């Protein structure tokens, strides 16, 4: 009893803070947790007129149909291809550019370069898609003009499946590489200067210092970032593939998010579309937990 009253008295002290949390609670319940309950329609024959609660249950019918669907597996495959291809290029490149920026001695040059590199991050995908046409079009794209001037045949960046993957990766790397350096640069400022001085006095070359001091000191950030990115392999934004893609490359540009959109919104198959989302969420959580276990196994901090 007394403890309870004490707790209540303590909570009264914090009444303003709880008051601030009321709208937050309402927001999360309405827009995040009620939709979470809404995933039950993946196990229901959803009927628009009956709504989420009253629609009849149908067990795993929707999932069985989904897993037997070729298009679904194509979307899964394409999602993994695009994500892995992007990761393969952007991950090492981001680290390299961070290390290069870290070496710059002139503060002005560093600041200007950083500002320019961050800029594409703030541009919408619609604009990036418009720019990609300028750059990659077969008839008058900047890159193909250079290619043709060098005596080669124009490359079908936007209309050939394989080349389109390259285009997608380039657009993503262009947009996010600068922004990605922020976290590494932050980690690099934390490296102990005295280590460098000691190594310098011992006659270590610049390259040796990079390999034996710099990289080990940001190793944990690198591992954490890698795990975070791998655990997002099944998640892909809808805007990039939808806007850069076109009808000709639908074979590679149709990913989970665009497929979910087409089925759910354009064809109004709510249950099917929700089932895909649930599949994705569950997959993500499993990979995240595994990645976290793995990180702890190799002696790094976990991420959960």
């Amino acid at each position, binding site marked *: 009893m007394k403890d309870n009253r004490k707790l209540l008295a303590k909570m009264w002290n914090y009444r303003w803070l709880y008051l601030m949390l009321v709208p937050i609670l309402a927001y999360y319940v309405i827009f995040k947790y009620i939709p979470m309950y809404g995933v039950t329609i993946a196990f229901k024959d959803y009927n628009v007129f009956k709504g989420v609660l009253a629609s009849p249950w149908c067990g795993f019918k929707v999932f069985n149909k989904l897993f037997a669907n070729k298009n679904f597996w194509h979307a899964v495959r394409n999602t993994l291809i695009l994500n892995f291809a992007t990761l393969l290029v952007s991950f090492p490149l981001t680290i390299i*550019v961070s290390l290069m920026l870290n070496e710059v001695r002139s503060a002005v040059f560093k600041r200007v370069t950083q500002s*320019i*590199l961050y800029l594409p991050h703030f541009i919408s995908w619609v604009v990036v898609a418009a720019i990609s046409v300028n750059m990659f079009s077969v008839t*008058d794209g900047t890159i193909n003009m250079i290619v043709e001037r060098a005596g080669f045949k124009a490359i079908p960046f936007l209309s050939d499946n394989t080349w389109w993957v390259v285009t997608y990766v380039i657009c993503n790397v262009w947009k996010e590489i600068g922004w990605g350096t922020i976290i590494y640069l932050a980690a690099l400022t934390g490296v102990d200067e005295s280590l460098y001085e000691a190594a310098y006095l011992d006659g270590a070359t610049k390259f040796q210092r990079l390999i034996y001091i710099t990289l080990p000191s940001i190793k944990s950030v690198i591992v954490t970032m890698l795990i975070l990115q791998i655990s997002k392999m099944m998640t892909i934004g809808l805007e990039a593939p939808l806007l850069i893609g076109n009808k000709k490359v639908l074979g590679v540009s149709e990913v989970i998010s665009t497929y979910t959109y087409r089925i759910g919104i354009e064809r109004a198959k709510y249950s099917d579309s*929700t089932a895909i989302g649930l599949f994705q969420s569950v997959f993500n959580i499993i990979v995240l937990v595994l990645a976290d276990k793995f990180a702890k196994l190799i002696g790094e901090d976990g991420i959960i």
Partner: protein
Amino acid sequence: MTTKKKLSVGLVINGIVLFIIGFICLYPFLNVLAYSMSGYNAVLSGKVTFYPIDFNIDAYRQILGKTQIWLAMRATTIVTLLGTALSLILTIFAAYSLSIKDLPGRKAFTVFILFTMYFSGGMIPTFIVVKSLGMYDTLLSLFLPQAINVFNFIVMRTFFRNLPESLAEAARIDGASYMTILFKIVLPLSIPIIATIGLFYAVAYWNTYFDALLYIKSPEKYTLQLRLKSLLFEGELNNSGANVEGIGTQVMTQSLKMATVAVSTMPILLVYPWLQKYFVKGVMIGSVKG
């Protein structure tokens, strides 16, 4: 002596490579501007690279004369202003309350928020909720359902936690309420992080295409990105746009398209340099300690 010289050569090469990377990052922007301001003979002959040829601003005159663009601009401005204000208030409230260490229930509440990062209802269940609240085809649907970004919440909470505690403690002893402390002490010290997170929200609202695609039906409520998409990729400009005949239309369209891109991106490019000095620091603080 030799090592010193070697080092500086390495530094110069490093600088040159970074300069090239920077140029590659900037080139598409310059290309857009160059196209939008070039005469159509230059555009047609494919001579335009990163500076305008036969400079003129006809494309801008045309695009700014279109009501569609102004309507879209207005819708997006409303969403960006209201959305950023709401997002900032909610994020500050959440981040500040949950940065107070001995608030009973703090842990549970934090988990309640963080959990949404890993598991979500997904596109359709959210769509159903938004629709059943009567927000379908309203501008409200473009900011209310995504008002709080968990990442931004984490960054801001980390910032608040790292503020010196002594000031707030002194105020508590003087009998100030938490509301007073937030507004009189914490917020004035938090201008950099508020500017940073505000910029993130504003840019996200300005740039969002998907939410508008999902929730907006009436053309007069089209946001800028939605309008841009239909102008650039669905050939709206060809039908209703330039009154130049034949081949001129086609070329004019390219300049017109690029002028549209430039106009719609301009607001971001204008605020970017002013807020840039804040956000690098702000994000660094948040990401290292978070």
